[in-house]
């Protein structure tokens, strides 16, 4: 949807915007060093200690508060590993350290999906083609209609229900996203090709299931069931949390969607502007920053995906000032505000709606061509 708070920028404005944002990035990168290394290692230590404490407490589940605390600690460990370590490390934010355990190309995360698939669908497609309909798969993940520019189909009427199921099973959705099952069902992808792509995912899924639903429960002996349940709930909490953070980052009321035509000869300045218009921040302080892997600063993350994420909070002051100067809307709000706007989109666009006028022609051209 075209945002009325935002003015149209000329090519000259965009070049200036790029220059100013490049300067913010350069200042941050010049300071990157020991502080960042110490920070990420402390976060890794938090992941390890909370996982250990959580799993240990779950073994003592005969005492109910131990089950609750154990489950919450395990969920905390899984959330921080996923958001602040894995997501950011895989963007190459800590590649400069030369530490193989924090290398963006080889890091393997604690999720059923493979890191390799994520590196394609997220780092490349989503970050390069942010909020471009038909290019950025994260726009509804192929199952949800979140923008009026997406053509309505009757099955979207059920999306308020399957959006909830999707949230609960989010890591499984991420795991199969890059497999593109739609192509298999429509016959565009051969069974052999699918089997080849599925092999590493299958291995990863089995390993994760083995760890959380066989190994640790069996290790608990008589407390097999409470440990199984605790692991299940911890994975569920993480699913809902990551789903919420990601959806709040791109599908709030003022977040914009773009047609493929913007890609033609796109300048660096325009790419920057698209990141600002397509992303939204969450205000909530240090704890929210940590638990969201600093995706509470989704705008800064999209502008500077390879800058160590804990620096976004500091950088956001300058970014916000630059946006104000250029008359660009800086989309930010509390978690509750942004989450309710996302929920509204899921409910509203389950029903038919008119395509808005802003990009009407471009989107219409695509619809007839496609």
């Amino acid at each position, binding site marked *: 949807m075209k945002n009325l708070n935002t003015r149209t920028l000329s090519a000259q404005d965009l070049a200036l915007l790029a220059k100013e944002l*490049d300067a913010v990035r*350069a200042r941050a*990168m010049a300071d990157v*060093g*020991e*502080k*960042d*290394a*110490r920070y990420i290692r402390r976060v*890794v*230590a938090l992941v*390890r200690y909370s996982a250990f404490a959580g799993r240990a407490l779950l073994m003592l589940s005969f005492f109910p508060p131990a089950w609750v605390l154990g489950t919450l600690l395990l969920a905390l460990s899984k959330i921080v590993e996923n958001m602040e370590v894995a997501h950011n490390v*895989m*963007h*190459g934010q800590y*590649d*400069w*350290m*030369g*530490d*193989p*355990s924090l*290398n*963006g*190309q080889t890091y*393997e995360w604690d999720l059923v999906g493979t890191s390799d698939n994520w*590196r*394609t669908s997220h*780092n*490349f*497609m989503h*970050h*390069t083609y942010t909020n471009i309909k038909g290019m950025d798969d994260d726009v509804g993940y192929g199952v949800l209609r979140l923008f009026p520019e997406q053509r309505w189909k009757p099955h979207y009427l059920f999306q308020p229900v399957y959006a909830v199921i999707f949230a609960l099973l989010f890591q499984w959705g991420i795991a199969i996203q890059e497999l593109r099952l739609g192509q298999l069902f429509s016959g565009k992808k051969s069974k052999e090709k699918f089997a080849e792509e599925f092999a590493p995912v299958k*291995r990863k899924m*089995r*390993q*994760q299931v*083995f*760890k959380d639903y066989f*190994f640790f429960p069996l290790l608990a002996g008589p407390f097999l069931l409470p440990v199984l349940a605790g692991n299940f709930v911890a994975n569920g909490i993480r699913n809902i949390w990551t789903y919420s953070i990601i959806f709040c980052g791109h599908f709030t009321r003022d977040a914009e969607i773009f047609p493929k035509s913007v890609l033609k000869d796109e300048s*660096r300045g325009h*790419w920057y502007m698209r990141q600002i218009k397509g992303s939204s921040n969450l205000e909530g302080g240090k704890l929210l920053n940590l638990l969201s892997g600093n995706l509470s600063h989704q705008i800064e993350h999209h502008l500077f*995906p*390879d800058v160590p994420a804990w620096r976004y909070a500091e950088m956001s002051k300058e970014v916000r000032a630059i946006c104000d100067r250029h008359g660009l809307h800086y989309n930010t709000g509390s978690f509750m505000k942004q989450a309710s706007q996302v929920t509204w989109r899921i409910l509203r666009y389950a029903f038919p709606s008119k395509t808005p006028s802003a990009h009407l022609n471009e989107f219409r051209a695509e619809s007839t061509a496609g």
Partner: protein
Amino acid sequence: MSTVPPNQATSFLLDAVISADAFDFWARKVHPLWSCKKPLAQIVSKHPESEDAVTLVLKPNRHVSAFIAGQHVNVSVEIDGRQHSRSYSPRYLANNHIAITVKRIEGGKVSTWLCNQSQRGNIVQLNDPFGEMTLKEHPNHAVFLAAGSGITPFLSLIQAHAKTGQRMTLLYWVRDDASACFTEALTQLAQANPAFRLHLLMTEPKDGIASDRIHLAQIQALVPDLVHTHWYACGPEGFVSTAAALAKQLSRPFLGEAFSLPELAANPGEHVQIHLLKSRKTLSVPSGEPLLSALENAGIQPAHGCRRGICNTCACPKNSGTTRNILTQEEQHEAVSGLRLCISAACSDLTLDL
């Protein structure tokens, strides 16, 4: 993790339950040298070797590879959060400890850290040994030519050669007394072993007569019976190439190693050599051009995505050489684990793990 394990099922289950990184995290808490597969060593003592060199005694863990006399290892240390590697000549000590002698280089990050900041108890990584300057078959008379810190590989070579009882001569060029390393150890070796002749050549002594830099008549005067000699030389580039030329002139077998100097940046457009380790290819590409497209033009298809420095898909390890970041114009001389090919241009010959 993707290598074929001895027992696939065990490896599958182990990977599932605890990653190598998680294992290392906990193992390090128990003992700083414990690791799943990292070749680590701990500094157990440190003593000055000359006015600007120190010897570090290292206790290795079981993953540190064995080396032979004359080889080098890349020693990695963490400075300000970043891993840096430099090559040093290791030698074994009695109790299986390893010694390296480090000469402090003006402006050198690693040598300065090792000489000034490093402390007993610090951990360094010792990567796989390399280098060709080892005793091939035992020559009946080995001539070792060392200049400055080029002495470091020779101490272990001399000790190895001494066991054969064959003749050897060391010509060791230094600036003055204070800059000479291992003088005590070398003197003792020479006294104990009549087959070993030692010549310390000072080019700028505080007192006494200055020796010349390496030339033919000097070697002929110091080493009698040159006919049966094998030559080994180590030192700065100019020294080693002069030694090689002299050996050729006398048609003597020769092995030499020069310190690699910081590579000079090529002019934009000038061709540089790109060595690709995994695909075992060497390509000539114009410097200054984005590496991704330069490699593609040369027929290589590296993995890539956005082509503008966002997605990190094309990042690959750079082992050596200088590159420039096209967006920031910053030059990078160090080895890096993730060089983004799409926004990097070569400034010198490069070695990529691609």
